[in-house]
């Protein structure tokens, strides 16, 4: 009874804290502009099933793909056990599902246990890849400090979760042999049936109950902690990968988003359309310099990024020592969204009059966006269909169209196109080549 009350209190506390975190993210994503979605909805479902659920794009590199799959499947399967922990926690029952499911229960828990072993192996290898083997993409400048600790914390959390499961199941397996009423036999679990007796076989009933309860609480408290931690970590991709892949652009990667407002202006300028007397004379801002001028999809993608760095590892500019890192672009957009979100939440700023004297250009320098070759390698590399290029191009548009800045070198190309109709200023005629050898 006391345990149930305590469980309920922790549950309510977690729910309240998590609600605040997730609501903030929801609101931050909605700081963005509307995003037109085009294309076939069935293709969107297909993308979500193949890329998010099926992890299709992870398999470009099979080793991390298989290891990641272990953790992913273990995570999904453990939800069954987690559901039971909720029921047991609230009602005071013990292994509530066992009598109803019988052999199926033994099978389910055994599967969870086997996958937990595989997930543990994967987690240890992942820790080694980050900390000992030092895979280069985990050690770029943008990964210094918090992002690096964040990744390690999550991996440590996974080890704690798995430890909890084995304490709980292992001690339980021994208790089941002691003929105690509360611990009815459940059949042999794949791992804890031998791990339990090996580790805890010599303990007294009281100590076993303590270990079992310790494992149970360790597991559920880590889960609750994880839930609260997620909105502050890079690990949101476990949830957001699904909407992110569903909403991902379906048009060819080479196609840049049209700007109908500019098209309209130019058509009027060229005499193709009549000016609308109702439109204000003042031109709006073009491109993006802040989260308010990016689309909500750009922001959703920033929150979906788990900072794996496959984009940056594939970026030709980054590979050749330039400052541009597509991952950093996504991280910067998220950091800025967080900053803006906090100012709004605390009431220091209002959305309609927002002016904190900063913009995305305080995070992302012109040098970075000027280094992009628009090659789409980052877009292709992302396992959850994030498009950093779209953001880079919106920043470039803001630089040129709103700030009248941008790389000086481009001016001669602009002038040539405007005055000569060619990307270079040439004195000869465009068709001169056909009369030469």
């Amino acid at each position, binding site marked *: 009874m006391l345990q149930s009350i305590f469980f309920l209190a922790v549950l309510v506390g977690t729910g309240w804290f998590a609600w605040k975190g997730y609501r903030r993210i929801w609101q931050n994503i909605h700081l963005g502009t509307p995003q037109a979605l085009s294309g076939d909805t069935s293709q969107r479902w297909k993308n979500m099933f193949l890329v998010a659920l099926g992890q299709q794009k992870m398999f*470009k590199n099979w080793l991390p793909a298989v290891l990641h799959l272990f953790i992913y499947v273990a995570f999904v399967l453990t939800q069954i056990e987690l559901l039971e922990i909720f029921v047991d926690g609230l009602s005071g029952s013990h292994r509530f599902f066992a009598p109803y499911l019988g052999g199926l229960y033994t099978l389910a828990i055994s599967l969870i246990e086997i996958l937990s072993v595989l997930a543990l192996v994967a987690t240890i290898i992942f820790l080694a890849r980050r900390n000992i083997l030092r895979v280069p993409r985990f050690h770029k400048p943008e990964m210094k400090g918090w992002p690096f600790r964040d990744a390690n914390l999550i991996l440590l959390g996974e080890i704690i979760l798995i430890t909890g499961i084995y304490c709980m199941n292992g001690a339980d397996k021994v208790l089941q042999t002691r003929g105690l009423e509360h611990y009815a036999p459940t059949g042999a679990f794949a791992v804890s049936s031998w791990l339990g007796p090996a580790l805890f076989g010599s303990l007294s009933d009281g100590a076993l109950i303590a270990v079992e309860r310790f494992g149970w609480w360790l597991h559920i408290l880590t889960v609750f902690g994880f839930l609260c931690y997620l909105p502050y970590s890079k690990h949101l991709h476990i949830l957001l990968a699904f909407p992110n892949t569903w909403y991902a652009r379906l*048009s*060819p*990667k*080479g*196609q*840049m988003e*049209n*700007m109908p407002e*500019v*098209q309209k*202006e*130019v*058509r009027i300028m*060229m005499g*193709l359309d009549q000016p609308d007397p109702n439109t204000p004379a003042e031109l709006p801002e*073009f491109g993006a310099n802040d989260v308010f001028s990016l689309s909500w999809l750009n922001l959703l993608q920033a929150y979906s990024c788990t900072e794996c760095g496959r984009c940056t590892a594939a970026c*030709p*500019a980054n*590979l*050749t*020592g*330039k*400052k541009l890192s597509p991952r950093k672009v996504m991280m910067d957009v998220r950091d800025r969204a967080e900053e803006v979100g906090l100012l709004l939440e605390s009431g220091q700023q209002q959305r309609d009059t927002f002016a904190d004297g900063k913009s995305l250009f305080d995070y992302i320098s012109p*040098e970075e966006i*000027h*280094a992009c*070759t*628009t*090659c*789409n*390698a980052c*877009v*292709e590399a992302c396992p959850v269909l994030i498009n950093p290029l779209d953001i880079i191009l919106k920043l*470039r548009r*803001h630089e*040129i169209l709103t700030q009248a800045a*941008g*790389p000086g*070198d*481009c001016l*001669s*190309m*602009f002038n*040539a*196109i*405007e005055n000569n*109709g*060619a*990307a270079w200023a*040439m004195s*000869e*005629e*465009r*068709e*001169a*080549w*056909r*009369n*030469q050898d």
Partner: protein
Amino acid sequence: MPVAKTYAEYQAEGNTPEILFWVGCAGSFDTRAQKITRALCDILNHAGVQFAILGNEERCTGDPARRAGNEFLFQMTALMNIETLNMYGVQKIVTACPHCFNTLKNEYPELGGQYEVIHHTQLLQELIQTGRLKLKEGGSFKGKKITYHDSCYLGRANDVYEAPRALLEALDADLSEMKRSRKNGLCCGAGGAQMWKEDEPGNKRINTERIDEALETNPTAVVANCPFCITMLQDGLKAREKNEQVMVYDLSEMVLNNLG
């Protein structure tokens, strides 16, 4: 007779060409790319394809301006091109430039320019498949070790990977792929208006990185499908002092030299 007639010249004769050849700025003005332009014209004439160019009426598609961020200039030049193309009633366009290809195919429709747009490697493959173009047996690339560079705007941007490779197979060339190819191909460094600007500070040029990878396959030639890639790859070879030993070809040049 010139190697190519303009759409206006066709109209004056009361004829309509099968296809418009979009030459592009590089194809019109860059000395190296002009060779590709002429090679494609020679092939099309050889195959008896009735093709026209826009000649002096063609303008930059606006790709570099748009990618540099200058949407006003892009819209302006694009709308002017669309006026011209629609005036002639152009239905089908072939181009040897993947940047023009991408812009014409993916970005002009929203501005009122709807055409069937193909890349010259796709047209050449089609001409060979339908028997309008024949390659000689045991041509000059038979068994020659070559490597193929996927341009970003034909490859990743538009998922065209097979047509160029089918041509290489038809030429009997011994293709050995670079580590990064197809979807994972590495950029030559020219895209996104980089062609017109100095590199940002770094420790290597992108084209050198790419040519180093190409050289790892020990090729006699690096084959490409884009005039900008060709410039970049050739510069990379010069930087590595390999431009005497290793050639850079556009697929059209290889086909032209091996017409049956």
